[in-house]
Each structure stands twice: as structure tokens, then as C-alpha cells.
């Protein structure tokens, strides 16, 4: 039997098994635990890559949990699915690959970074649960299952953010995130309840086929959209983002960036695949666009005045999320109009999806370098840091690459996706492109500030005995650096082989529905 049909399930089962067995691995001491962490991370990433290859070759992969046969989506004679169905189209697989690469880098980085703490078997268990939650959100085709995985990811991230429980700020950040996030999860559950009550189904494809806009559907849409935009940190609900990203351990922050992408995935799955053509008015697309623009501008202006290096970067992730929301909002706006879709909508979606992978890679790398600075120098305050370039050359080099990429300096990958976003949004409304350009300039300005104050400048006496960080942390950072350089050198290949299928899968609502509802026996 071809084992590759089980890939969607294995992608979720392997990190879950890794998490459940972590307490056992923790009994074997430090080396066994670290080896287990690396083994599971590499296996998960490899599975995700295989899944992507399979999906790109064979089209949407469907996996029915607990049925006699993996593709028995509809039991005989029925026209509705009764089981949980994992549905992996090109967009899901793309997001899973992005997230699992961030998870791999974070796992490598955490090996040495977390050495100063105790209770590390719990750390690795929580880390894999966070990975599972993220991948589950991206692969599932079931609304309630999505909620469950969202909760796994949320609860794991609360534990991980507060992992340094002797630092009051860490507990505070975790608490604030928890309040807002639990509330939003309840709203998502309410929306699932509404859709279940209306259509007696919780499968995304099944609901999408029957959906027509009524009062309850509109309220469900509002609850879903606002909750999921909150989970990825959009203005005006972004306040948890700088707290949580700054206080989490650096390896976890790298993964949290990936998890926020999973929420973004959920948002676009809801908008494009669940509601899609029946979205009706253009209120929701314009809301997403306006939220994106606000996020870009407010995020970056708040970042300029920050003193703490990780907090500054966290505000930048608010502004970068804004780019993605802007681009995909434009795509959503053009969804019902084939002419507009061909003119600028598809380009915007390509730019947005390309920006997702770019953003995750360079933002993860930036957080990792910030963590490396914190690890080596013992401070995150930019007023105290200085002159680290001579003692930490590798970190400085990787920071430079990432900063240039996020600021959109031409040869780097950030420029390509930003170019696509600028030019397509300009066609909708020129002001959007102007705001995006201003944001890009301010991003560059604030990273010049970080680079100049933390890495350049005269050597300070209190950092005289600072050394380069240990090898495993460098490996974690190099993984992301290599991906960034590869994306920089081969943008055409990436666009045509990864991004375009993902964008096509996202637009193609009928294909998404028929993968579940058209199959069966």
C-alpha cells in the first residue's frame, strides 16, 4: 500500500507523538531530550515537504479520519460528510511547510538557548504541542477541529510565553494574551455553533456548498474574521503581540510567528473557501484592507520609538502582517470580478502569499538574532547595547541579511513580494500603495537604528567578555538564512512552483468543495 496517502495524518501524528513522549525522553537526560527534539522536528519538516510535493503533483489531498478508506469522504448513498476530514490543498501544504521550517529553526535555537532553565522536558512537550496546533489548523478541513487545534496552539503558547515564570513581565504578557485569546476562541466556537445550527454540518466544504448569506451567517462571519485577525495581531487588537513576542523565549517567538500565520491561514480559508462567492457585499474585503493599512502604519510608527530590541521587532511583525492582509484583502475584493482578478487581484494574492513565506523567514530570523544578542550580552535594552559586531560576527551577518530583507532592499526577497503588493494595490487605490511605501521606509529607518546601536559603535567595557553564541543556535539561525538567500536568488521558481499553486487553490472555491463533496463512492 502506498504510505504517502497517510501523509496528512502523519504530519499531525508525529509532533503529537513527540510531545506525548517528551516526558519519557526527558528521563534520559539532556542529550536524549535534545536528540528527541531535533529528530521530531526534522521528521516533521520532511513530512511537510513530502506532503507539499505530493499535493503539487496530485492535487488536493483528502484524508478521512477513522473511515474504512482514506478517501471515503461521503458514506455510501449520503451527500454529507460525517467524519473529520483533513483537506490539504496547495495553500495548506505551503503554509505547513512555512510553519515547519520556522519550527525546525526554533527547535535548533532552543537547545542551547534554554539551558539556563529547568523543566525542559515540559518545554519540549509544549513546543511540539504548539507545532501540532499550528499544523493542525493548517491541514484540517473541519471547523470544530480547527477550533480544537487553535486551542492547542493557544494553550501551549500561554505556557511557553510564561515559561520564565520568575520574570514578572513574562507572566503578565502570558496573562494578557490569555484573556484576549480565550475570548476570541469563544467567539470562534459561537460562530461554529451558528453554522452547525443552520446547516447541521461542521465540515468546511459541506457548509460552503450549502451556504447562503443570512443574519446568522453574517454574524458568524464577523465573529470569525475579528477573532482570527486578533489572533494574528492586527490593529486595533494588536496589543498582546509586542508583549507576548517580546517576553517569550526567542526560539518560541520564531514559532509564534508561524502560529500567527496559521491564524492568517484560517482567516483566508474562511473568507475564500467557506464564504467565497457568497460573501456578497465588499464590506469584509474593505475591512481587511483597512485593518491591514492601519496595522502597517501604526505598527511601524510604534516600532520606531521602542527601546527594547524584541519589542521593536514585535511591532514590526504587526506592520508586516498588515502587508499580507492588504494584499489578500485586495485579492478578496477582486474575487467576484474576473476582469479585476486578472488585472490586479491575482498579482496581489501572489504578492501576499509570497510575503507570508518571506515574512515568516526573516521575522523568525530577526527574533532569533535578538535572542542571540540577549543570550550573549544579557540585555535587550538598545540604550545599553553597542559594539557587538566585532565579537559576534556571524550573528551580525545574519541580522544584516534579515534586516535588509524586511526593509525591502532590492536584491532580497522582501523586495519582490513588496513590489508585487505595491503595484497591485496601486491599481485599486493609490493611497494604499503610498502607505505601504512609507511603511517600508520607516521599517528601514528603525532597523538602521537597531543595527547602529546594537552592533556598530565603539566596543563597550561591560561587553568585553561577550562571545559568539553556541553552535546549535547558529545552526538554527543559518537554516532561516539559507532559506532567505534561496528565496532571494530564485524568486521566479518560488513564485511559479510554490506561490502560484497556493494562490490558485485559495481562489478556487469550487475545487475546494468538490474535493470533498464530489468524491466518495
Amino acid at each position, binding site marked *: 500500500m502506498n504510505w504517502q496517502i497517510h501523509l496528512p495524518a502523519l504530519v499531525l501524528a508525529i509532533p503529537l507523538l513527540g510531545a506525548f513522549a517528551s516526558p519519557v525522553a526527558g528521563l534520559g537526560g539532556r542529550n536524549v531530550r535534545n536528540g528527541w527534539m531535533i529528530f521530531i522536528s526534522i521528521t516533521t519538516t520532511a513530512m511537510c515537504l513530502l506532503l507539499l510535493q505530493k499535493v503539487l503533483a496530485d492535487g488536493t489531498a483528502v484524508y478521512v479520519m477513522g473511515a474504512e478508506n482514506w478517501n471515503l469522504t461521503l458514506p455510501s448513498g449520503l451527500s454529507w460528510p460525517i467524519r473529520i476530514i483533513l483537506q490539504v490543498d496547495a495553500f495548506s501544504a505551503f503554509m505547513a511547510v512555512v510553519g515547519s521550517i520556522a519550527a525546525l529553526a526554533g527547535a535548533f535555537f532552543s537547545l542551547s538557548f534554554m539551558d539556563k532553565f529547568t523543566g525542559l522536558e515540559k518545554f519540549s512537550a509544549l513546543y511540539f504541542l504548539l507545532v501540532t496546533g499550528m499544523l493542525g489548523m493548517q491541514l484540517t478541513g473541519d471547523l470544530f477541529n480547527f477550533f480544537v487545534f487553535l486551542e492547542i496552539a493557544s494553550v501551549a503558547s500561554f505556557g511557553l510565553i510564561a515559561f520564565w515564570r520568575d520574570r514578572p513581565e513574562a507572566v503578565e504578557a502570558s496573562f494578557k494574551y490569555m484573556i484576549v485569546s480565550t475570548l476570541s476562541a469563544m467567539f470562534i466556537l459561537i460562530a461554529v455553533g451558528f453554522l452547525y445550527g443552520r446547516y447541521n454540518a461542521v465540515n468546511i466544504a459541506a457548509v460552503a456548498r450549502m451556504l447562503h448569506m443570512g443574519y446568522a451567517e453574517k454574524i458568524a462571519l464577523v465573529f470569525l474574521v475579528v477573532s482570527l485577525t486578533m489572533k494574528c495581531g492586527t490593529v486595533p487588537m494588536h496589543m498582546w503581540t509586542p508583549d507576548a513576542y517580546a517576553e517569550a523565549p526567542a526560539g518560541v517567538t520564531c514559532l509564534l510567528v508561524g502560529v500567527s500565520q496559521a491564524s492568517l491561514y484560517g482567516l483566508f480559508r474562511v473568507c475564500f473557501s467557506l464564504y467565497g462567492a457568497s460573501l456578497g457585499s465588499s464590506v469584509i474585503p474593505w475591512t481587511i484592507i483597512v485593518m491591514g493599512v492601519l496595522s502597517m502604519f501604526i505598527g511601524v510608527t510604534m516600532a520606531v520609538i521602542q527601546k527594547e530590541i524584541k519589542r521593536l521587532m514585535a511591532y514590526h511583525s504587526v506592520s508586516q502582517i498588515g502587508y499580507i492582509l492588504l494584499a489578500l484583502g485586495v485579492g478578496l475584493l477582486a474575487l467576484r470580478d474576473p476582469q479585476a482578478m486578472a488585472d490586479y487581484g491575482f498579482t496581489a494574492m501572489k*504578492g501576499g502569499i509570497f510575503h507570508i513565506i518571506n515574512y515568516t523567514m526573516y521575522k523568525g530570523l530577526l527574533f532569533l538574532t535578538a535572542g542571540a544578542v540577549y543570550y550573549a550580552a544579557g540585555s535587550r535594552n538598545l540604550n545599553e547595547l553597542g559594539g557587538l559586531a566585532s565579537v559576534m560576527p556571524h550573528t551580525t551577518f545574519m541580522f544584516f541579511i534579515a534586516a535588509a530583507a524586511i526593509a525591502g532592499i532590492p536584491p532580497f526577497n522582501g523586495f519582490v513580494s513588496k513590489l508585487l503588493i505595491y503595484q497591485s494595490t496601486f491599481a485599486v487605490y493609490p493611497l494604499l500603495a503610498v502607505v505601504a511605501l512609507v511603511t517600508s521606509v520607516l521599517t528601514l529607518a528603525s532597523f538602521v537604528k537597531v543595527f547602529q546601536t546594537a552592533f556598530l559603535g565603539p566596543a563597550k567595557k561591560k561587553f568585553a567578555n561577550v562571545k559568539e553564541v553556541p553552535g546549535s543556535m547558529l545552526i538554527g539561525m543559518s537554516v532561516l538564512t539559507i532559506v532567505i538567500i534561496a528565496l532571494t536568488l530564485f524568486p521566479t521558481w518560488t513564485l511559479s512552483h510554490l506561490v502560484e499553486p497556493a494562490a490558485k487553490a485559495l481562489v478556487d472555491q469550487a475545487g475546494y468543495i468538490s474535493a470533498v463533496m464530489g468524491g466518495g463512492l
Partner: protein
Amino acid sequence: MWAKVYSGFGYWDVYVWLIFFGITSALVLWLRSLGRDDYKEGTEQDEIFYGSNEVPEDGDDMGVPASSAYWGFVKALKPYYDSLIEIHSGIASDYVGYFVLTVAVLAVLVLL
């Protein structure tokens, strides 16, 4: 391999850029090599000029702290920043309030 990224309005080609970048750096290096030949390493030409003051031992005493960077920008936008910092009050129930407010506004907009 040499294909371009078309955005509908123009295109982007990383290799053209890299070739241009290489040519420019070669040009710059060549110009730099034409520089002054009376420069000697390890002489007083290497000394830091610190406003004709004594150069401090510790780097902490020179250099601008990060919070002073872009002070003009921040000063010009002071009303904007004041209102922004007031929004980021740090109180958890306010954050929940903004979430609920967004839900309410969007619900009204969608239902209208």
C-alpha cells in the same frame, strides 16, 4: 532560470540586479584603489578624532543612546504618539474592550 517576475506593470529580475551590483562594486573598488598613497596603518592617522577631546576608554561614554534616535521625528509627531501610547495602556480589560469594540463595529457594518 532567467525568467522575470512580472507584476502586471513591470518586472523584476534578480540576476540583472546582481550583475549591476557586481559591476558597481568593481567600479567602486577600482576607484578606491586610486586613493591616497600617503596613508600608513598604525600611525596617528588611525586615531579617532573626538571633537579634540580625550577619547574615552569605555564606549559607553560616547555614542548616542537608541532612545535619542529620530528625536525630531518623534517630536514632530508628538500628538499622534501621545494618543497611541494612551491606547497601549497595558490594562488587559482595555485590550478586551478594543476586541469587543471591533466586533461591534464590524457587525453593524456588515448588517447595514
